[in-house]
C-alpha cells in the first residue's frame, strides 16, 4: 500500500498513486509542483550542481 503524504489518500499500487492529482499540491506526483512551493528553485539548484559535475 502507498499513501500520499500530502492528502493521505491510500493507493493499492505505486502505479495508481502516480496517476492521482493531489488536491493539496494540485499536481500529480510526477509533476514538479508535487515538490511544493519551492519546486522550481529546488530543480534549478539541482541542475546547476549537476552541470558542474558534467563539466568535470
Amino acid at each position: 500500500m502507498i499513501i500520499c503524504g500530502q492528502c493521505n489518500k491510500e493507493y493499492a499500487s505505486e502505479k495508481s498513486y502516480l496517476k492521482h492529482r493531489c488536491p493539496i499540491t494540485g499536481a500529480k506526483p510526477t509533476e514538479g509542483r508535487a515538490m511544493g512551493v519551492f519546486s522550481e528553485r529546488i530543480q534549478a539548484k539541482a541542475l546547476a550542481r549537476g552541470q558542474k559535475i558534467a563539466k568535470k
Partner: protein
Amino acid sequence: MAATVTIDESNGAGETVTANITNSNMGSNDSANLNTTTYPIVAGENSFEKWQRFNCTNLGGSSAITNFKVWRTTALSGSDTHLTNARTTSYAGAATYTTPTASASSVATQTMPTSEPASANLGYGGTLGANQTTTGYSDYLVHQIQTNAATTAGASCTMNYQYDEIA
C-alpha cells in the same frame, strides 16, 4: 523540465510507504508525518527509526540524478545523539527494510552530519555517487534520535535532503 523527486517514508511490518512526506518529525511512534505532541520521546529513550528514500517519480528529460546527500542543521537538546546509516566512507551498501524499531538501531550507527557532506553519503543501488538513470528509489536513509535522561523538551531541527541532476 527537470526531475521530480520526493522523500518517501516506510513504516510498519508490511512496509506501508507514505510518499512525498511533509515532515520528518521523530517520535515514539512508527508513523510518517507524526505529531510530536501526541508521540513525544521520553527522556532517556530513542525515537523510532525513520526509513526514508528519495523517490524520483519523473526524470523530466534529464539523464540522471545523483549525489544523494542528507544532513541535519541546528542543535539537538542536551547530550542527545542523531544517528544514521548515511556516510561518505565505509558505506554499508543498500540497507534492507526491516520494521522500524525504538531500540537502539543496528543500522543507524554513525552521527548524522551537521553540515553538507563533501560527497554523497547515501547511495543508489548500494553505491555512493552512482547515477540513477531511471525513476525509482535511492537506498534507504535510516536515522534515529537517541535521547539522554537529562535532555530537555522541544528541540527543533532541520533535515536537509539534496541531490544533483544531470541534464
